[in-house]
């Protein structure tokens, strides 16, 4: 590949030889898990259980799609769990107080986006690293959520919500849970944005070489703010679904989600240092974790075993990705 004398004409030589290594290895892991779990539990493959998995992973998946953009741009958003918590608080309390369900969902998405814009502004204008900026908002938003319940709403828990919002979280269309349908639609949207638009292309490009993007006239700050806003919007939508699923909300909703979600995104193959991202990998990452969680419950394993497994899997997956990229000569960083 170096010298180029014997190379074919430009433009024509586009076919890269396909290899089995191009398949995301998580797919094999998921297939392996399915075989093992199907043998270990006769309930695992039942349609109701499979649909249950899709319902369980939907909220995580919607947030993880946004996080894939964030991490691909060499950022990170630790505040997703807290954003989810505050949005859930507002959506649940407003519906409980009689606001139209659809308006409340819109309000949740708008609030999430606004929080994302705030994160983006802190990162770009105050030039604070995303890790610190969103660690700050993680803590602050959780505190704000508690304050919201105690001072503005005067109850610690919201419950018994109208049927529409419960349908959003618990309903079915045929055998398919409504949250899974929404998550699938969001996957299509995220996949389109990521692979087919300037928004997606600039996301990975900024993660790869921000200075070059700025030099080429890309509005880097604006793009980053939009990325965090999209992540926030995902949290707002996920909050509405979660409120429906729980038929209520409490101040601790979403606590610890950030680690679960970042683990899934990285597990899927998105590079933590930006430049390379994969929506398909994120879907597989979320599914892997979801299948492990579901399967461990079904076979009656100790709850904490799943965390050990997921942790080990994360390390193995990242080690594999690093090895593969080094072998392709793509790991060098400038």
């Amino acid at each position, binding site marked *: *590949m*170096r*010298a*180029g004398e014997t*190379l*074919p*004409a*430009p*433009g*024509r*030589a*586009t076919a*890269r030889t396909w290899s089995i290594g191009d398949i995301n290895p998580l797919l094999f892991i998921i297939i392996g898990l399915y075989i093992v779990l199907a043998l270990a539990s006769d309930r695992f493959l039942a349609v109701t259980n499979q649909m249950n998995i899709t319902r369980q992973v939907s909220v995580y998946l919607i947030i993880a799609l946004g996080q894939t953009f964030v991490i691909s741009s060499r950022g990170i958003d630790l505040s997703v769990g807290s954003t989810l918590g505050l949005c859930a608080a507002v959506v649940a309390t407003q519906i409980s107080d009689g606001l139209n369900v659809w308006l409340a969902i819109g309000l949740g998405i708008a609030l999430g986006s606004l929080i994302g814009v705030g994160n983006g502004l802190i990162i770009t204008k105050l030039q604070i690293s995303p890790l610190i900026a969103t660690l700050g908002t993680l803590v602050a938003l959780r505190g704000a959520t508690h304050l919201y319940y105690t001072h503005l709403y005067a109850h610690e828990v919201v419950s018994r919500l109208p049927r529409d919002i419960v349908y959003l979280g618990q309903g079915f269309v045929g055998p398919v849970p409504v949250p899974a349908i929404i998550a699938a639609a969001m996957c299509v949207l995220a996949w*389109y944005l990521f692979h*087919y*638009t*300037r928004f997606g*292309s600039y996301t*990975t*490009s900024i*993660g*790869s*070489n921000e*200075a*070059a*993007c700025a*030099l*080429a*006239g*890309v509005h880097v700050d604006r793009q980053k703010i939009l990325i965090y806003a999209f992540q926030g919007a995902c949290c707002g939508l996920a909050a509405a679904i979660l409120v429906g699923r729980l038929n209520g909300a409490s101040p601790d909703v979403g606590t610890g989600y950030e680690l679960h979600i970042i683990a899934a995104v990285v597990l899927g193959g998105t590079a933590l240092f930006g*430049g*390379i991202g994969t929506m398909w990998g994120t879907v597989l990452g979320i599914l892997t974790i979801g299948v492990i969680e579901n399967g461990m419950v079904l076979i009656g394993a100790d709850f904490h075993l799943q965390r050990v497994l997921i942790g080990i899997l994360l390390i193995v997956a990242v080690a594999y990705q690093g090895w593969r990229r080094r072998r*392709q*000569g*793509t790991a*060098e960083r*400038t």
Partner: protein
Amino acid sequence: MSDDATALLRVEGLRKSFGGVHAVDGVDFSIARGEVVAVVGDNGAGKSTVVKMIAGAYTRDEGRIFWEGRPVEPQSPEDAKDLGIETMYQDLALVPDLDPAGNIFLGKEPVRRLFGVVPVLDRAEMRRRSAELLERVRIRLPSLQVPVRQLSGGQRQATAIARFLLSDRAKLIIMDEPTAALGVQEQRKVLDLIEQLKQQGISVLVISHNLEHVLSVADRIIVLRGGRVAGVVPRAAADRQTIVALIVGGTA
């Protein structure tokens, strides 16, 4: 070689000092259309400073810059770009995880409408036009769809050059040490590339430490010493000894 009337770029009495040190102390020269001009000189002779004033990266203390006969004030690299002056940076300013076509079109991606409504990046168009641009400078890349981090140094330079050709505005390309840090074969390719640009009618201003390279591509060689022009040598009269003598000065 270049007459004042036909010069693409002419600078007169350029001066720039940093904290009392005269980095550039009255420099005059000109570049004609399609001419390759090399600037050589010892470290601290003022090469980079002169070039950065033309590229809009530094503002000058004194002197005038004429572009196509008109006085201009490039205050920023963007101003220079608007005039048609492009600078190739040493790190090439490429996005390593993006393919050559993506890099060439970065910030200017064409968009088509799927079913007449949904906007999508027109990757086929990007590849097609990238191939044309690369063809113009006789460069072949193994693929337009691999990340540029997998390309060799010379192939990355070609990608950076093709970026400049895209806008069709580039009339002068400034290259700072384009052959440094490249293998011998790759260096040859970069020199060929400069030759191709010249044939396209694009002027090239190249800074290089490598006199062999300079002698093989430059139409004229401007030797700077202590912030002044020590001599301007046309290719016909250029040989290694003359230039080295001008670089080190008449102390012999």
